[in-house]
């Protein structure tokens, strides 16, 4: 018995240096840990691509790990491990704002710089949030694209998620403001909710097409509304005659974009989001980005705007027939 416990304690002693050896890496190279909501998700895999490019430019080591199924508890576990490993920077997309904030605060106490991207934590649990797009940027890009397609005139309708979704209402507000300012010959005839259901969006679009025979464009502000409206336009035989612009993932819309039913899909550039997030994390660690800054230089992206504690990625990206095949999220 004694002999056995002696061997066990020997093993534990032998394992101790193994557990702490990661800490003794040279301090010159930053170790940046990137946490996605879910590591199998194409969206975050694309973020990682941008992040790797940034890390390569910086000569930093990039760790990429996350839950398989957007599990907030697993996110905490991974952050705890990174604290033990002693990484320099954690760049996190938060599945659950409250649950991860405790772990991120602990990381900050351990001297790790924390930046969030895609989905924020509580403000005191990180230094900066890399904001993929502002409500104004999204709203203006949607109406500008629709106006460019219709020549800035004619009737248009909006399909939204729900009438109570604050973020969507904010985008719609900016669509209306911009339209009133820049495109006085355009007229918003209706705004319909699709309850975040593609099939309901299809019905709503079908109704809109028959109720407004002069409709020139539909703008979809939630992601299920775009393929739903596309199918309605296609079945009504109005592809191309009624322009369709919306916010969504390229993969969910590529078939309709290639057929010419959907003219443009708008989303932030996900690869650049990953790139900028890592650049912001590194700049924070090196002291190039500090609270109160109004801009910082992010590698090949150049000078990026900082508003308060938000680093702004800028104008959203427009996916069209010409470029949609290059994106696989």
């Amino acid at each position, binding site marked *: 018995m004694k002999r056995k416990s002696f061997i066990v304690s020997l093993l534990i002693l032998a394992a101790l240096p193994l557990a702490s050896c990661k800490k003794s890496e040279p301090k010159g190279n930053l170790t940046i840990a990137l946490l996605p909501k879910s590591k199998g998700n194409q969206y975050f895999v694309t973020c990682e691509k941008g992040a790797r490019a940034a890390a390569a430019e910086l000569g930093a080591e990039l760790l990429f790990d996350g839950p398989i199924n957007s599990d907030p508890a697993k996110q905490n576990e991974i952050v705890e491990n990174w604290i033990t490993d002693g990484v320099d920077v954690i760049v996190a997309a938060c599945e659950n704002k409250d649950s991860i904030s405790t772990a991120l605060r602990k990381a900050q106490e351990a001297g790790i710089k924390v930046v969030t991207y895609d989905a924020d934590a509580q403000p005191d649990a990180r230094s900066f949030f890399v904001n993929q797009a502002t409500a104004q940027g999204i709203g203006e890009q949607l109406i500008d694209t629709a106006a460019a397609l219709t020549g800035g005139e004619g009737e248009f309708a909006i399909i939204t998620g729900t009438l109570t979704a604050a973020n969507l209402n904010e985008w719609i507000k900016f669509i209306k403001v911009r339209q009133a300012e820049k495109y006085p010959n355009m007229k918003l005839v209706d705004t319909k909710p699709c309850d975040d259901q593609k099939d309901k969006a*299809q019905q709503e679009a079908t109704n809109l097409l028959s109720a407004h025979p002069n409709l020139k464009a539909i703008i979809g502000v939630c992601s299920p509304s775009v393929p739903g409206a596309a199918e309605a336009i296609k079945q009504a035989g109005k592809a191309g005659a009624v322009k369709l612009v919306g916010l969504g993932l390229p993969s969910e819309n590529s078939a309709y974009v290639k057929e010419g039913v959907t003219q443009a899909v708008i989303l932030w550039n996900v690869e650049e989001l990953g790139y900028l997030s890592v650049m912001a994390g590194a700049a924070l660690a090196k002291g190039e980005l500090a609270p109160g800054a109004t801009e910082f230089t992010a590698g090949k992206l150049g000078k990026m705007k900082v508003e308060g504690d938000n680093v702004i990625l800028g104008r959203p990206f427009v996916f069209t027939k010409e470029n949609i095949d290059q994106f696989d999220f």
Partner: protein
Amino acid sequence: MPALVAAIGIALIIISRQIDISIGSQFSMCAIIAGVTAASGLPLGVSIIAAIGAGAMMGALNGVLVAYLKLPSIVVTLATMVTWQEALRLWQQGRLLSLPDGIQWFGLSQPVGQTVVISIAFILLIGAALAMKHLSAGRFIYAIGTDAEAARLAGIDPKRTTFGVFVLMGALAGLAAVLNLVQSPQVQPNCGDGLELKTIAAAVVGGVAISGGRGTLFGVLLGMLLLANVNPALTHFHQPPYWEKAIQGLVILLAVLADGLRSRKNQL
């Protein structure tokens, strides 16, 4: 049309004095099962059978819990509703599933496909209406909904009948999911959300007594048509969409009120 197929099932459930609020989740689950099997390259026939079979199994689970374990159907189906919904969320992560070519409109042209979908729904409606009137199984459903004890004394097995109605409901949810699936090239894991409300409302507005034992499928069809036209009417009259749910709610309230007044008069 897919909602009409599901409404047939829900009407039978309500007539037998039960309720099933899990049908939206069953519908979504069946749609995704059909979608995943189709996307893996299996023929459309297999997907259809898989969807209907999965629906029947989910219905059977409800049926066992309600009929044989005597648990209240509202609680049982509330539990299964949430279970299937969350299972789907975990499985599909909310993404749209693209279907292979040849699924939309059963691989036929759009007008032919649409005709097929409508025909299936109406044949089913007429068949079920005739069965409810002339087959003993149909009369059993009315009997257990009116008075389960009297039905049992008359030699009907209420447990078996209730179980059968839930299985049928599940299978119809599966078929409805298939009829919905073939109308577009993508399927979304939340496609059945709200279906329970839509179909229960159609049944109640169509004169099916929520207390069981009374109602016709022809009435359900009328209820469905009435409620389905509220939204297009608002769009055509250029009214704000805020009214849609309010008007639907009001119609349901009036229907329940009318039903309540009528049964009170019968009692006096």
